[in-house]
């Protein structure tokens, strides 16, 4: 299966135009979700939602047309293997402070694929925290597709925490559409899985719509992480900001593709993406491709990347304070990931991440 295809191709020798998932996938349907903290004003429909009557059919039709950053082949895969989807809807003008939490606890051998839809109706606001976890030694396959639609003036805050075992292969496809004055915030911690494919497609269609993305990752002991972010600006004065930060160590490999597409007519739009990759050992592979496509003059697009070892100045300072080089690296990696972890705002999730990182650095 070809995943994470770039919206515009470049040299084939870079092997970044797409990623290939070459393992045969046979699902067993194990690995179900537990939902907690369903706030008032939020409706959750589970499975075969078309018949549950909680959503406007036209809204469902719109959201299902959205494409994830994983690409067409992955989207077709989800269509073919998932019976229905988990639908979460925040009613009009309902603003929810407390997060709704969905926990997928997986076990060794679990192989599952799920679809989720989150709709924030006009003027509403919702936070959803999704975490996927298993024991460190577990193997399996877990694919999740999440589609978001934030209607006029609405806000969706989605937090994804992936803590699956090193034998897992993960696929995480996200598609989002923001209407006028709507906001989408995405926080991701990609820490587990031996092979992990993340594809995000954000469509800022509405005037003054916005997207803020913060992703933290850690790739150690041969983990492979392949990321593809696409942010399409159609709406006038739409604003996007994407920050991806993390570390690689011990034979691990990470690809980051990030595209800001400033489309014709998106007057006043601004897009920015930043990447910071800390390389902690010699045998790592880090590929970065930050793209800006610009078909409009009255826009601002920018990107930056910093890739490499720990700054010699920082290392010297830490060593002068009694830290060994390894301790300094661990400390700085934690600091980098904490910049994302600190945004989550849910104690249980933050605790799970801290515990995962403790074990990772043992």
């Amino acid at each position: 299966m070809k995943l994470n295809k770039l919206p515009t191709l470049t040299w084939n020798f870079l092997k970044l135009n797409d990623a290939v998932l070459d393992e045969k996938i046979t699902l067993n349907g194990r690995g179900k979700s537990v939902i907690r903290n369903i706030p008032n004003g939020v409706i959750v429909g589970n499975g075969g939602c078309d018949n549950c009557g909680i959503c406007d059919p036209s809204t469902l039709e719109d959201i299902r047309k959205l494409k994830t950053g994983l690409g067409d082949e992955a989207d077709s895969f989800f269509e073919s293997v998932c019976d229905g989807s988990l639908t979460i809807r925040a009613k009009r003008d309902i603003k929810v402070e407390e997060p709704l939490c969905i926990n997928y606890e997986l076990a060794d051998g679990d192989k599952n694929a799920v679809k989720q839809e989150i709709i924030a109706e006009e003027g509403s606001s919702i936070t959803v925290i999704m975490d996927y976890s298993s024991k460190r030694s577990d193997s399996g396959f877990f694919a999740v597709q999440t589609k978001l639609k934030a209607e006029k003036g609405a806000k969706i805050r989605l937090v994804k925490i992936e803590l699956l075992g090193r034998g897992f292969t993960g696929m995480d496809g996200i598609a989002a559409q923001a209407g006028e004055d709507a906001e989408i915030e995405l926080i991701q911690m990609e820490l587990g899985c031996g092979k992990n494919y993340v594809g995000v497609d954000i469509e800022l269609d509405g005037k003054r719509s916005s997207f803020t993305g913060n992703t933290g990752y850690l790739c150690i002991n041969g983990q492979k992480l392949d990321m593809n972010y696409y942010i399409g600006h159609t709406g006038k004065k739409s604003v996007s900001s994407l920050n991806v930060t993390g570390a690689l160590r011990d034979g691990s490999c990470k690809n980051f593709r990030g595209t800001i597409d400033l489309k014709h007519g998106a007057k006043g739009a601004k897009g920015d993406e930043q990447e910071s990759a800390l390389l902690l050992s010699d045998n790592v592979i880090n590929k970065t491709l930050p793209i800006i496509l610009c078909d409009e003059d009255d826009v601002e697009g920018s990107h930056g990347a910093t890739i490499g070892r720990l700054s010699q100045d920082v290392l010297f300072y830490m060593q002068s304070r009694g830290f060994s080089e390894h301790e300094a690296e661990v400390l700085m990696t934690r600091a980098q990931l904490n910049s994302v972890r600190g945004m989550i705002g849910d104690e249980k999730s933050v605790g799970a991440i801290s515990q995962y990182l403790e074990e990772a650095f043992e």
Partner: protein
Amino acid sequence: MRERSEVNDIDRSAYDFKDSEEGFYRIKEGLTRQIVEQISEEKHDPEWMRQFRLRSLDIYNELKVTDWGPDISGLNMDDIVTYVRPNTKMSAKWEEVPEDIKNTFERLGIPQAERESLAGVGAQYDSELVYHNVKDEVSKTGVIYTDMESALTGEYADMVKDHFMKLVPPTDHKFAALHGAVWSGGSFVYVPPGVKLDIPLQSYFRLNAAGAGQFEHTLIIVSEGADLHFIEGCSAPKYNVANLHAGCVELYVGKNARLRYSTIENWSKNMYNLNTKRALCEDGATIEWISGSFGSHVSYLYPSSVLKGKGSHAEFTGITFAGKGQNLDTGAKMIHIGEDTSSFINTKSISKDGGISTYRSSVTVNEKAKNAKASVSCASLMLDDISRSDTVPAMDIRTGQCDIGHEAKIGRISDDAVFYLMSRGISEEDAKAMIVSGFADPVSKELPLEYAVEMNNLIRLEMKGAIG
């Protein structure tokens, strides 16, 4: 509603004039084994080169056109004449060059530049060099600057054979293979160890014939501790049929040597510019690319620096101006192989009047390139809302012991900057002209004065009204 301004298109009248092809030898259109053999025969190739051409043709036929980059479906090789020889032989005296050809180069300012500021000049007209000369004092230092054909059979034949298309093999891509099959003309430069040339050498390539291709090969070997500045210029008149430029530049920079390679590319807007340039740097060597891309209908141009030697260094400074009907895909490649290598890319691009400018680059740091440092900075300026500007910069880093940085910006002229300048008594038009000139400044200041002037003339930023 703010008034829009205009940045005038490049004034091409200085380049857009044509000469008669009467008496010229023109090979049949297309690309066949027979045509390749005929070119080889016309050029009196040694046998190895004849075989090389035929092998390259086979590779060309096997390779596919790239699936990325600008569309080149308008280029039909069956319509392209791969070899056009003017009715003259190469001379070292301008007086011996036929009057119309000499006038062409006079209008382009080449003889004047030679008199005033160059150590040697090569002038190619269609497929062959018509003039080649190097100053006596330069010859006395042992510097060899000659046409490729003479080098192929002369005293340096073995050196040419050892280096020709070794850095850019015909298997590199389809148009490198095409070059290998039909190349003609170009320059060979050899700078002996320790020789430092204070003034530059220049080759100028003029493609006059309609529907023709130019496939010159430039091979430069700068030996240990030597220093050279080489300038390449090119232009062509505009025709209604497609022309093709698929040149090849191979630069070998020896231990602790330095080479600066400057190019002002000003092909006509019917030209498909599919050029390949590559430099190999030994220990402590430095390659500096200065590149101005103004012409062509379609361009694929990414000078590559292979930093093989320990402590070698590469810099690429480039500007691309894409106007009406142009799709210019330009950038650079940096390949870090040796320890303590460093590279710096600094590019500017301007898009106007429906032009498409794409900045494309790659920085590759291999496992053994410990302590590599690389920095990439690219900025794009959009002058109207019917143009397009994309940036596609890739980084492939395979060692932890490195420091890599990248930054890019796309936007239009800042209203705040214009307002500030106007508040200091500068007119709006002048303010905008000043800002755009400043945007191009990092490139123009790297060029020799006369080329900086040419570049500024090419941009010709005559502002009217307000951009916005």
